[in-house]
């Protein structure tokens, strides 16, 4: 399995508090992604990164920010958590933004509950 670690794996937080999820990789892949998964919506891209300090928005980026100061770490921050952000969050890595002969590898997910 690809070396991807998401932390924490589970978190319960209160509405209005800031939350940061971490994705750590040991594969030295250039691209990293954050997704959320909710029933009936499949997997939706929040933000992605194509290099250190290079990030871009995905499909559902409102309410989320990201940072990538090192190749191996991609942080997802909810500045002020809301109940609508209760979800399972997945991190993924790949060697290129589109799979021209490569593939994306996913972490185990973080289950976030905002109460």
């Amino acid at each position, binding site marked *: 399995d690809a070396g991807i670690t998401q932390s924490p794996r589970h978190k319960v937080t209160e509405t209005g508090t800031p939350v940061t999820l971490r994705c750590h990789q040991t594969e030295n892949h250039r691209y990293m992604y954050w997704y959320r998964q909710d029933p009936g919506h*499949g*997997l939706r*891209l929040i933000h992605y990164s194509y290099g250190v300090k290079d990030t871009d928005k*995905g499909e559902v980026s409102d309410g989320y920010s990201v940072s990538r100061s090192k190749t191996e770490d991609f942080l997802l921050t909810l500045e002020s958590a809301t109940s609508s952000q209760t979800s399972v969050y997945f991190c993924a890595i790949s060697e290129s933004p*589109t799979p021209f*002969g490569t*593939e994306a590898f*996913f*972490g*185990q997910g973080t289950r976030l509950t905002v109460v």
Partner: protein
Amino acid sequence: LAKTTQPISMDSYEGQEVNITCSHNNIATNDYITWYQQFPSQGPRFIIQGYKTKVTNEVASLFIPADRKSSTLSLPRVSLSDTAVYYCLAPGGKLIFGQGTELSVKP
């Protein structure tokens, strides 16, 4: 960005062949078509990708016609453990997954 369309759900029985078709009418010339599989409580995993004609590996086959506007994932002789969500991607720049096809295999 190529938009993909696939059935929301499918049912099958053990031992049958399952074919899941995905349409991607405006796929870019250089894009590969990629399929992922996701089991409950796990992240998706890559299963197969192709550019045209047929690709086969130990898990599945992928059929892509000459016009590349659709593709068909074929799972031979499915078992209960093949119950999962299957995603078709024709990325065009971002890994956009969509809702996928929820395959349910029954005994």
